[in-house]
């Protein structure tokens, strides 16, 4: 089955809900990544069930970012298998991985990464645009979902850090991805906004979305369903 066929057959996917194709969203086996002689990841195997909210934790240099880049199809493993929502994605071409990423993955970044000259609403619509067609009403619904409908016409520079991160979450949600990958989403936020964003992620989990949170904050890790710990590029027991 080709990537496009697999995506087309994913007809049961709901707008902001999970797919019903299978229970397993992430299934990685023996994953490894080498940068020359340096092994950033070695023999990493785990899975994430649909609707699960897991945290990937570990100290700096443990391979969290490398693993996240591979999970988000922004990088390739040098060893092992990676199945995303039932599709073997590690061996796909760059073009195919781009298609999978926009169809299946919603990304939330530590530094928000919003386009500075687009309003909050337009930033959300941008993800729709690359996925299919920008729809103002749907984008507005996504902003309402994160409590920012009233700030839709504000530029990122006119929003607080917490608000920018909520726009980023709305953008990640807009195409109903099978997986939301959040990389230190509260890393640049104060305590109040950290609580707000984590509450939002928990609500999304309660709605049935699959979320992988990368963090080195143990308090945040404790609020997830399960923690995957990395140590020197390997899963810690």
């Amino acid at each position, binding site marked *: 089955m080709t990537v496009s066929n697999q995506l087309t057959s994913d007809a049961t996917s*709901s707008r902001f809900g999970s797919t019903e194709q299978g229970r397993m969203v992430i299934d990685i086996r023996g994953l490894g990544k080498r940068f020359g002689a340096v092994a950033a990841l070695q023999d990493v195997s785990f899975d994430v069930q649909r609707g699960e909210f897991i945290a990937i934790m570990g100290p700096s240099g443990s391979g969290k970012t490398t693993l996240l880049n591979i999970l988000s199809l*922004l990088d390739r493993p040098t060893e092992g298998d990676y199945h995303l929502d039932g599709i073997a994605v590690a061996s796909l071409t760059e*073009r195919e991985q781009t298609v999978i*990423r926009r*169809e299946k993955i919603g990304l939330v970044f530590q530094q928000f*990464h919003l386009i500075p000259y687009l309003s909050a609403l337009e930033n959300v619509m941008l993800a729709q*645009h690359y996925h299919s*067609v*920008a729809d103002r009403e749907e984008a507005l*619904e996504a902003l309402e979902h994160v409590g920012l409908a009233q700030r839709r016409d504000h530029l990122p520079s006119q929003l607080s850090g917490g608000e920018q991160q909520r726009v980023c979450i709305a953008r990640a949600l807009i195409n109903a991805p099978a997986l939301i990958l959040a990389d230190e989403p509260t890393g640049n936020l104060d305590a109040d906004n950290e609580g707000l964003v984590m509450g939002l992620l928990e609500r999304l989990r309660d709605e049935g979305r699959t979320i992988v949170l990368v963090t080195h904050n143990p308090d945040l890790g404790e609020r997830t369903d399960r923690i995957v710990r990395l140590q020197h590029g390997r899963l810690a027991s």
Partner: protein
Amino acid sequence: MADANPGRRRSDRSLRLRMFSMLVFRSLTVRGSRIGIALGAILVGAAVVSALTSLYFDISIKMSEELRAFGANVIVTPRSAGQTGGEGTHGIAAETLRAAIGALPQGKIVGASPFLYGVVRLDVANAVLAGVDFQGLRAISPYWQVEGSWVTADFDDRNVMVGRRIAQTMQMKIGSPVTIINRDRTHQVQVRVKGIVDTGGAEDDQVFVNLPLAQRLLDRPDQADLAMLSVIARGGEADALAADLARRFPDIEVRPIRKVSQADGKILDKIEGLMALVATVVLIITILCVNATLTAMVAARTPQIGLQKAIGAGNGSIVAQFMAETTVICVVAVALGLGVGFALAQVLGQAVFGAWVTFRPVVVPLTFGLSFAAALIAAVLPVRGAVRIVPARVLKGE
């Protein structure tokens, strides 16, 4: 949350186009200074290309008109006539000459005059009489130095022009009476000298009268020996015109006067070559300037391009956005450049040729084509750089 309708969303091209246009517009307006530099560079390039192509298409005519000051560049003689002039030689029917001259393309002919030659007696000495069309002669002989004035009316058979040496030999002055007698002494006319001609050539020994008077004096009604034409045509064109006339009028032979025609062509070729060189150099400078600006723009936008790729933009989307932005800049710059270029062409036309340059529609697509080509060449490397951006690196701030 509303349920998705993938069919509806995917089919809505106008919404996609609207979002794409908004992205391009916002991206352009937010980078005013850099866009201004790229726009300025393309504008200058388009203006120079527009000005030089305007001149290029106009210059052949303008320069040929200027070069017509060198005199006639085409000669018409009877077919297989070994010599011209002299009573008894066979000439061309003046009507045939008029028809041949009339057959030349409108606007190509600067002037033309038939010539009928014969030997006559002037009071005390013999001289060569030349029957001409004075208006045509004046047009094809702008370099003649004339003391007094030209005979202007075609029907004026009381005034003549004489060569400088004859005037000196016979001590003629402006207004002097002259009696012209034909060889058989069967005709004679009393005329006055209206102008004394100094060309430094054979004309200085000739007497110029209107063609009908010469035909009567030489007893060769409706005849001429040859015609001299000044035609706006470069070397190759003069040959083509001559061949065309010779084909249509079998009784005559038409020859470009090589030295003049080829000189016309060589001078024009050199000027056009110089203009092409200047245009090429300016376009290369434009390419370098636009390339540097676009490269800087890509560098400044690296995080955004990385983000766009991370959230699903394919390489095609990135390329399309950059090409659309470049196209918008190019369209605005070329539209302005065409106006500036036309004004520049007027300045150059006035400075070099003392004439206004005519607007030629072909300049518009040519300027657009060359400017677009330059902008696209300039955009190749920056766009390639944008496509090669690795999201994982730039989103982490590497």
